[in-house]
């Protein structure tokens, strides 16, 4: 399911809001989440999970092509911990529904 499919699914079930409202809102929601992490805040959604930043210490990496060493600065990476309800519901689908083959994708 992509973001535009998510917008379609929500809009189909909406009696109050127009498609345009749903579209703007869903795009805004992912942006609020990105902005929270960007400013060093956690995201806590009960029943879904929490997002936080994990620290990665500076290290010396290597260019795999040339073998040259490059120093890499410390950084933060996003981390997601699924909440109890999500964990349980997903696990209960194990053995019931197959994981659908995904289009080979690099997250955008």
């Amino acid at each position, binding site marked *: 399911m992509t*973001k535009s499919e998510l917008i379609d699914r929500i809009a189909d079930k*909406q009696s109050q809001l127009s498609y345009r409202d749903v579209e703007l809102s869903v795009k805004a929601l992912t942006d609020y989440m*990105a902005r929270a992490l960007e*400013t*060093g805040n956690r995201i806590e959604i009960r029943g879904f999970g929490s*997002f936080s930043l994990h620290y990665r210490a500076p290290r010396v990496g290597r260019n795999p092509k040339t073998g040259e060493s490059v120093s890499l600065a410390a950084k933060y990476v*996003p981390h997601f911990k699924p909440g109890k309800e999500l964990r349980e519901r997903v*696990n209960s689908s194990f053995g019931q529904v197959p994981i659908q083959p995904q289009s080979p994708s690099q997250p955008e």
Partner: protein
Amino acid sequence: MALTKADMAEKLFEEFGINKREAKELVEQFFEEIRTALVSGQQVKLSGFGNFDLRDKRARPGRNPKTGEEIPIEARRVVTFHAGQKLKARVETYGGEQPTQEQPAGSGSSAAQTQHPLSDDTE
């Protein structure tokens, strides 16, 4: 402060004037549709944010780290999140765990480098 569903609904109200009850419902729907997709075996891809993928894990012998007791871990399905390039780039340079004061100091000439507060002490 952590971002919550209530905060997200409030922002929708402020930014688009969507009434609070509807905004709250929409935020709820947003997460519920993602859960539903995952429960039905579908990967979820949110451009600009990241992908939620599913993985089936085989059973393996586990151990209670406190008691050392062996407990088998059952086969299970888990959700994994992979941040997209755009989100990774946005958070990468985040400068500190706490909102710290600007430190004009800076070792050497490259002042643009962000540093973790814990690694900030001088030897």
